[in-house]
């Protein structure tokens, strides 16, 4: 349940925050979000990853559709990747890794803090 919630909120966060902020601010925000929601370790990684990766993929698909621009293909050729399609995949994978690591970090941090608190409580 937390996994789904985290994935959804991550996606929304990327959609809105990324418009005004660079990717690294989004990463920090995802870390904080994961810390607040505290999904499982795997949930943090995949939730953040899917949230950011799918949104980035969706945005590239959307931009390509509404603009019909040849730029993705040109960039693909320029970077030696062939077509614009491979750049979409690359963007999605990059988004997934950045989002995933951020989510994971948030969970790890929360676990760390939580552990301390547990110690204090038990003590």
């Amino acid at each position, binding site marked *: 349940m937390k996994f789904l919630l985290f994935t959804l909120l991550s996606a929304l966060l990327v959609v809105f925050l990324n418009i005004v902020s660079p*990717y690294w601010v989004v990463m920090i925000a995802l870390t904080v979000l994961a810390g607040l929601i505290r999904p499982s370790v795997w949930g943090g990684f995949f939730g953040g990853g899917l949230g950011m990766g799918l949104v980035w993929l969706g945005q590239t698909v959307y931009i390509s559709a509404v603009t019909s621009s040849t730029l993705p293909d040109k960039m693909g050729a320029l970077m030696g990747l062939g077509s614009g399609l491979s750049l979409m995949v690359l963007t999605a994978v990059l988004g997934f890794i950045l989002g995933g690591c951020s989510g994971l970090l948030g969970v790890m941090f929360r676990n760390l803090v939580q552990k301390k608190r547990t110690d204090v409580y038990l003590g």
Partner: protein
Amino acid sequence: MKYISFLGTLLLTGALGVLVSLPFGQIPPIAPLLDPNHGFWQNSFSEDQLAEEALSLENLNAAVEVVYDEQLIPHIYAENELDLYRAQGYITAKHRLWQMEFQTRAASGRLSEIVGPMALELDRMTRRKGLAYGAEKGISYLTENDPATLALVEAYADGVNQYIAQLSDARLPVEYKILNYRPEAWSAYKSLLLLKYMSDMLVGDRDLEYSNLKKILGKVNLDRLYPEFPSENDPVIEKERVWDFTSLAPAKPDSLNYPEETLHLEPLVQPTEGTGSNNWAVSGKKTKNGNPILANDPHLSLNLPSLWYSMQLSTPQHTVKGATLPGALGVISGFNENIAWGVTNATKDTRDWYKITFQDASRKAYKYGKDWKPTEFRVEKIAVKGQEVFLDTVVYTHYGPVVYDQSFKSDRQDVNFALRWIVHQGTSNEQKTFIQLNKATNHEQYTEALKDYAAPAQNFVFASKSGDIAMRIQGKFPLKWKEQGKFFMDGADPRMEWQGYIPFEHNASTLNPERGFVSSANQHPVDSTYPYYVFDNSYEHYRNRRLNRELSRMEQITVEDMKGLQYDSYNLQAAESLPVMLNLLASYGESSKEAQKYLTDLKSWDFFADPAKKGQTLYSIWFAETSESIWRELMEQGAPVLRPNNYQTIALMSTFPEDAIFDVHMAEGIQTAQYHVRVGFDSLLVAMKNWESKEGDYGWADYKKTTIQHLVPNFKAFSVTEVYTGGGSGILNATGSRHGASWRMVVELGSTINAFGIYPGGQSGNPGSRFYDNFIPIWAKGDYVNFDLRKKVDQKGVLFKTTLK
């Protein structure tokens, strides 16, 4: 354990976040580039999808309205000139920022900052030529003498800078994202620098090659192979023109000594062959509607984003439209409600070299007459991406900078030459010329506007609604005695100095000549009766004659006729030389089936270089190979020299085919022109066999492969290759493989102006926009888009409108 996994994840995530923000060699930071909200994806939008109704531009006196037509050509309506140029700067930057910046960086020798050490030698050369030095002097000149123009240039700069300040990551041109740098502030200095850069693009000199040729061939043979006037001279200013002034031309001093050594310097980069232009105007008596018609097509390197950017600029006092240069104010080639004008390069040898004799190794003084004159040192600090700053000390003499010296491109330690060039003098005001031309309403104001214009010298064609047509060859031309500056000169001899400048009133010009048209195509400016010394190696011999023959022949001329003439692909050189070559070839090689096929193509060819014509391909290879064979021994002298031009080569082949010049010393027996034509034909067979097996079809367009290249040649995907179009060097449609008509304009000056224009590119500088290269197919076919003047209230064909306030 949890600490370890936390720290591990922290390190991993942190490292990842940093890693994707760093460049690796030539690979830009990957995350900012791919981020769909800020990276290159955002450059996929075309301008109409990002249209904004209002934008903020400070320091305006009144709101400025910008109306884009369906080709994304902005029409700017301002209440006064300061607002107009502020808006021009802002709007130009909005569509062409990266290009303006890149070109001025190139002009100031600062490419190494962006691309690294690979550009260092180029940057050193640019700086040693003194372009930036000239622009700095230009700014001081404006500050002291023309604050009104300076205020306009500064308003333009302010407009550019306000755009840069508002620029979001998303809207940053994609080239910045790939090359990983940011735009820096624009300035009035950069606008002047851009005009100096045009000089650099258009002006060449062959003093080095001529100095060597004089040594190798001797003066008599030099004059025979490289005559200063061709036998059939068809100059810019009609031959009938009478020069009704007293010449100030200086007499040639006696017993001059030239530096005698054969020089092994590397010559300066020259304007590429095929760089040139056409312009003409026909008077109402030759046109169908009785209105003057003016046409202009400057030929330059074909690049993307295009060098040109179309605009209409309006105030309540004037409305002007045409081609602008991003970075410079006003319209450069265009028309207003009363007049039209256009430019072609009017090259005259305005760059000269002086041998400098330094007093000692410190280079603090050099010999001049009986004295020693002090030098100045200018230290060029060249920032290099990924390396330390490179310091280059350039010695300046009163002639100009010593371009080649012990530290730069000379294998002779004792050879130092200073470059004398108009560009180094700050006393010109080209920007004012264009601002005044934009507003001129008649011939008098056009002439007045040209008074401030020094370089690069241009043939300014003119036509007015009131019925005048005119041509003026305008530049600041040094007064020279015969052959001064044709060869390297001795800087220690004061008699070698330029003797002043040809007065403005003595520059060649004509108004309403009897023949009913004026025209220029980079040929000799005048005939030999002009009382000043005129010399350049690069004068055209074919386009001009074709153009003048057609204009003389034509009557009842329409705009369509003039468009047709700009696209004319008749190869006069081939028409004059192919029969000679076929005659010399005689029955040679006819036994081979392949040779027969090519000869049939050649014999049935009508001399038009249309895209599908095979004869043009075969002729161009055959002639090039023949010329190569004729001049091979001359070119292999071990020092930089140049070949006699095609016109002279053909004249020798047809008039003196048995001349000793055709003899090959290395070969047995005596060779004549016939030998070279046959060698050339054999080479043609080899080249065609190779071509046909690799590429197949040899129609002209398939062979020449016209390419419109992005300003960064490595960005191949941003170039447009293999454009299917005809024409070539020496042909009115001068479109070769990398050069050609960079802008075509035809204007009929009737009661309402009827105008057409096109250039091989598009209004947008963004490779992702649908307006990036949309003009190219239209241009390739010889078609145009409508360029009529628009009123603010016109509603037809509006793409979108923006108010600047």
